[in-house]
């Protein structure tokens, strides 16, 4: 039976943390740990979730958890998995929770190495689209047009000039046993994917979009709606990669307005109609690709 609100493990494993109110990343961590259960051994690199969860003596993980170096999420997971297995322990889940910068920038090499070795780990990227912990600086997963503290929106440059790095397909290109995209706006879909990853041997990667009210410029109670809307307007998608094939999990009948999605967030408020058209056409190109290549 699919895991849902009623069947989900009632124990909270990530509790009392100091994440900002309405934090999407903390919801992703919380839910994933509830699906994985008490034998999850979690690795969190320097970043939001370690900064809010590990301030001695306020320690907010009920399960085993450790902070890794910023670049070392995947390599530390590898060591934990190998170390436990070498001692004959097998009933655990080594899981990493890294942000977009920790995954797509500084941690990409170690992640690639782990997938290459097909280490039996689950790597979850909570993507809030910038270095939020250090004060909203651009990462390679910051979307085109977004204003961050290092991509200011001024007269000459209107925010970030580059599109989001395509982590899902980069990871899939390694021939990974399982990869998926998700959004905290569709939490049941995320739970199903974590549950599925839990059963698969080898490296698993889940990329979950997790809005940050502070960095995106939305109200704290808008996190879930905006995380739904980004999927509904087609700027993000819910998909899986397995056995060498891409599969789309959810196809909106008709896309909701990209402009409406963008204009709700202060990081995009400077965008012109022209900018929005550019974003819309890159969305359409992406979906053409999806229709051609995803089942």
């Amino acid at each position, binding site marked *: 039976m699919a895991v849902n609100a009623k069947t989900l493990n009632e124990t909270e494993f990530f509790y009392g943390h100091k994440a900002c109110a309405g934090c999407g990343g903390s919801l992703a961590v919380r839910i994933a740990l509830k699906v994985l259960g008490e034998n999850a051994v979690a690795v969190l690199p320097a970043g939001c979730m370690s900064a809010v969860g*590990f301030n001695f003596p306020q320690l907010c993980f009920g399960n085993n958890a450790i902070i890794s170096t910023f670049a070392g999420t995947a390599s530390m997971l590898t060591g934990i998995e190998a170390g436990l297995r070498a001692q004959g322990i097998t009933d655990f889940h080594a899981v990493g929770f890294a942000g977009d910068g920790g995954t797509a920038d500084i941690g990409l090499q170690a992640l690639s190495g782990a997938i290459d070795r097909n280490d039996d780990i689950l790597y979850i990227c909570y993507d809030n689209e910038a270095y939020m912990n250090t004060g909203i600086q651009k990462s390679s997963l910051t979307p085109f047009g977004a204003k961050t503290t290092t991509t200011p929106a001024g007269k000459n440059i209107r925010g970030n000039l580059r599109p989001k790095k395509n982590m899902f397909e980069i990871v899939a290109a390694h021939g990974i046993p399982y990869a998926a995209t998700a959004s905290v706006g569709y939490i049941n879909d995320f739970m199903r994917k974590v549950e599925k990853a839990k059963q698969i041997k080898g490296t698993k990667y889940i990329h979950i979009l997790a809005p940050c009210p502070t960095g995106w410029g939305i109200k704290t109670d808008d996190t879930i709606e905006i995380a739904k809307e980004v999927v509904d307007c087609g700027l993000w998608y819910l998909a899986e990669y397995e056995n060498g094939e891409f599969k789309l999990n959810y196809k909106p009948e008709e896309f909701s307005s990209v402009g409406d999605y963008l204009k709700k967030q202060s990081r995009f408020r400077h965008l012109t109609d022209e900018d929005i058209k550019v974003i819309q056409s890159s969305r359409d190109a992406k979906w053409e690709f999806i229709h051609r290549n995803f089942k």
Partner: protein
Amino acid sequence: MAKRFLSGNEAFALGVRLARPQVISAYPITPQTIVVEKLSEYVEDGSLKAEFIHVESEHSALSCAMGASSVGARAFTATSSQGLLYMTECLPYAAGGRFPIVMMNANRSTALPWNIYGDQRDSVSQLDSGWIQAYAENAQEALDIALMSFYIAEHPIVSTPFMANLDGFVLTHTYEVADVPTIEQADEFLPPYRTKNKMSLSEPKNLAFSAGPESNTIFKLKEHLGVLNARTVISEAEQRFGKIFGRHYTGLTESYRTEDADYILITLGSISGLVREITDKLRAEGKKAGLLRIRYLRPFPNEEIAAAIRNAKAAAVLEKDISFGNEGTVYTNVNSALQKAGINIPTSDYIGGLGGKNISAEEIEGIFAELEEEKRTVKFLGTGGEESGSQCKNAQ
């Protein structure tokens, strides 16, 4: 025990095999490669039961070793030079986490200019990282340190990572006869790793956390005490080792004919063999020469150095490193030890062997001759430049 003809790297790899590490993560770099090649062969042929992880960088090598150690597994890695520098972030991390990882470092010059040969600038630059640092003189000592390092690092009052240094090529690639202990003897010497500093399913923990200003100094003090505690544990390990294997070591330093020596040369690593020969030659000529070999740079042998030097007329340090803009770091440390002990004799510093440059017998004799002048100088050996006072003239 069996006698075998071994290179330093091979001897060290055999020592590591005897220690039964559970996880080995390593990335290749000259001149360390043979250690990890050998260990991968041992895993392949079944003579070592360990997880061998082919990491994609040195940063990941040590990060992976920390992961293994954080769940209570015995972990080993090896590196050199640029690789050591590439993993630099992980060095104080492993020490601060109190993960007793053992790492072999093949001492090699650091770029620029590029150079693959041996000097000790790589490891000496990491003295403040919180690791125990040992320097082997020969293949036998390399093998023995490999085995002893796990005992020392993992001891509960130490719980500190251990860097075992072997001079690149001169030691790592030079063949000598060494005794290889049996696995039964090794098992008698080294118990399995047991710790409370780990994540376990029955007793979940949060590890490697943040500690603010209120507690940070206490964590750092405890880390410092862990390294200092290695002093007594090294001596305990060596006594135990001597009983089982019949080979005896002398703690943080080894004194050679220092008791009545007027002039003492302090050095570390493989060059000590030649200095010992020169000492004997000078003694035969009636000159009161002595050698003090530093075996451990951390914990630093303050008391041992003071005790060995106390009655000398002058002392010099011969080292393969330089802290640019100051002097050799070993020299700085030695002078600190002497000053604290109230010993005020002239000391000099000789920087040699950089980038694998040969240090000749004549040069060592020259150092002893200059010692008789009882001056205080810092010199780069073999550069043709002369120097006096505390400043080096050769900089321009």
